[in-house]
């Protein structure tokens, strides 16, 4: 019986990618906390994860010969999953909808969940290593 890395790592190999994509979106929110007219965004995590899981190995990417061409295909794990946040406070006057407290706690939560996924992956890897090495110490 062959060892399947894909099966061994399970969902965590995709979770980690979606978590890092979400970290990027939240970092952009925090960075733009003082930008007039900026609307806070967040990643729809479950649909991003679903998309990452169902993505086939050979995606149909469009050929681009210019920097302004649309990428197309499944090149971006974020495409279509980034949604605008519903502000929980009325407009402060400059059209910015970033709530820094909310973004910071989401960023921290997302970071911890990323670490949790890493821990799961680490334990799977050490389990595989144990299986490969047999009963050697």
């Amino acid at each position: 019986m062959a060892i399947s890395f894909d099966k061994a790592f399970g969902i965590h190999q995709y979770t980690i990618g979606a978590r890092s994509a979400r970290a990027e979106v939240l970092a952009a929110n925090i960075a733009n906390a003082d930008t007039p007219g900026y609307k806070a965004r967040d990643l729809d995590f479950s649909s991003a994860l679903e998309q990452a899981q169902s993505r086939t190995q050979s995606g149909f990417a469009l050929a681009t010969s210019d920097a302004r061409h649309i990428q197309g295909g499944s090149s971006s794990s974020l495409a279509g999953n980034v949604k605008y946040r519903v502000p929980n406070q009325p407009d402060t006057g400059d059209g910015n909808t970033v709530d820094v407290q909310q973004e910071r706690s989401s960023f921290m939560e997302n970071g911890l969940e990323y670490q949790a996924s890493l821990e799961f992956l680490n334990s799977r890897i050490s389990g595989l290593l144990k299986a490969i090495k047999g009963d050697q110490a």
Partner: protein
Amino acid sequence: MSLFRIFDIAGSAMSAQSVRLNATASNLANAESVSSSAETTYRARRPVFASALADVMQGEKEGSVGVEVKGVLESQAPLLREFNPTHPMADKDGFIYRPNVNPVEEMADMMSATRSYQTNVQVADSAKQMLLQTLRMGKG
């Protein structure tokens, strides 16, 4: 990889906030710079922030936009014209012009800029921790 982009984004925010802090420092330093004509009087400066949408145009992933400073604008608030004929800078009618800098406003702006800078440093630090842990993955 997304985590590397966080450094760009947080870095752009940090440099934007430092431009804002620079403008605040300049405003506070010149709060008492009197002058003898309205044209030569110092006016309060404010940077204008905007999302760096240029990256999105170049096929970058949506959702990750940094900050850029569009420019530094001078406040159009009226200057303080003060009758002070004994002042060495007084014009022929005995008036001096004081800058339209509001020190209270500047101090509040300074605190806001400092906190935003700190937040972005923490974001970059968290991203660094996440990356380092990813690099150590599988090493036990």
